[in-house]
C-alpha cells in the first residue's frame, strides 16, 4: 500500500511535488505542519530543529514514547517516511538563527516559522521577508477556546492573536497548537498553489525550475 495524492488537478499536484518548504522548528507547530504538507503532496522539506524529543513533548507534539531521546529531525523523518517513503528531506539538527536563513531557505518557495522563542520568531520572520520569501508564522496560540486569528499581509501570514503566549495560565495545549499548525500548513499550500501578486522569491525559484 502506498500514499496517493489528494484530489487536485495534475498541474497543482506537479506544483506541490516540485515545491520545497523550509520548516523552522519541529515542535507542536512545525511537527504537525511537516506531516500535513507531506500528506498534501509537497515534494521536499527542509527540517530544522536542535532539540531532542523529550517525554514532556508528547502532550502536544506528534512524536511517540519510543522516540524520546531522538533528534526531532530524525524522529520526524521516520514518521514522514511512513507516509511517503521517498519524500525529499533535508535534516538540519541545530537551532536556526536569522543569519542562517539565506542558506537554509535556498531553493524554497515558502518558509514556515514554528520556533518557540518570541525574539527568535521576530528575527527569523524579518530575515525571511527581507530575503523575499513567503512566510507563514504563528504568534499567540496559548490556552484554549475562542477562534484562532489568521492575519494576512502580502507575503506574510500570521496565525494567532499576537498576544497570548504559550506560558503561565495559557500553556500550549494540543488542540489549539495543532489547529494553529493546520492553519499554517493551509497557508503554506495556498502560497504554493495560489501565489500572491508581485515579485517574491517563490517566483524566482519557479523560474529556475526549483520549486513552487
Amino acid at each position, binding site marked *: 500500500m502506498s500514499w496517493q495524492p489528494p484530489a487536485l488537478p495534475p498541474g497543482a499536484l506537479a506544483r506541490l511535488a516540485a515545491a520545497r518548504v523550509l520548516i523552522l522548528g519541529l515542535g507542536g*507547530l512545525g511537527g504537525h505542519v511537516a506531516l500535513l504538507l507531506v500528506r498534501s503532496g509537497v515534494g521536499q522539506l527542509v527540517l530544522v530543529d536542535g532539540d531532542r524529543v523529550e517525554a514532556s513533548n508528547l502532550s502536544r507534539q506528534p512524536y511517540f514514547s519510543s522516540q524520546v531521546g531522538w533528534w526531532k529531525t530524525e524522529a520526524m523523518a521516520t514518521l514522514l517516511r511512513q507516509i511517503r517513503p521517498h519524500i525529499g528531506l533535508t535534516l538540519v539538527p541545530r537551532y536556526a538563527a536569522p543569519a542562517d536563513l539565506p542558506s537554509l531557505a535556498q531553493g524554497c518557495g515558502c518558509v514556515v516559522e514554528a520556533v*518557540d522563542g*518570541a525574539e527568535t*520568531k521576530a528575527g527569523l520572520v524579518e530575515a525571511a521577508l*527581507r530575503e523575499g520569501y513567503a512566510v507563514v508564522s504563528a504568534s499567540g496560540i496559548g490556552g484554549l477556546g475562542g477562534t484562532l486569528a489568521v492575519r494576512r499581509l502580502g507575503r*506574510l501570514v*500570521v496565525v494567532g492573536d*499576537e*498576544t497570548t503566549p*504559550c506560558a503561565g495560565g495559557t500553556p500550549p495545549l494540543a488542540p489549539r497548537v495543532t489547529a494553529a499548525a493546520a492553519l499554517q500548513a493551509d497557508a503554506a499550500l495556498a502560497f504554493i498553489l495560489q501565489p500572491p501578486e508581485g515579485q517574491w522569491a517563490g517566483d524566482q525559484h519557479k523560474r529556475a525550475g526549483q520549486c513552487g
Partner: protein
Amino acid sequence: MQVTINGQQREVLDGMTLVQMVDSLGLIGMPMVAEVNGEIVPREAWGTFVLPSGARIELVRFVGGG
C-alpha cells in the same frame, strides 16, 4: 500627519521615526516585525526611518510558543 497602524488611522507628528511611533504605542522592546507601505523595515533601521505621510504601517508582535 495621518498614518494607518494595523488598519487604524492615527494622527502622528510630522517627521516621526518608526521607533518613536513604536515607543508612543508603549511597544518598545517587544519582539516585532514592521512593514511600512508593504515593505519590511529592518529592526536596525527603525531609529532612522522617518514615516511618510499617509504611511500604512503593519506591526506584527511575537509572543512565545511553538
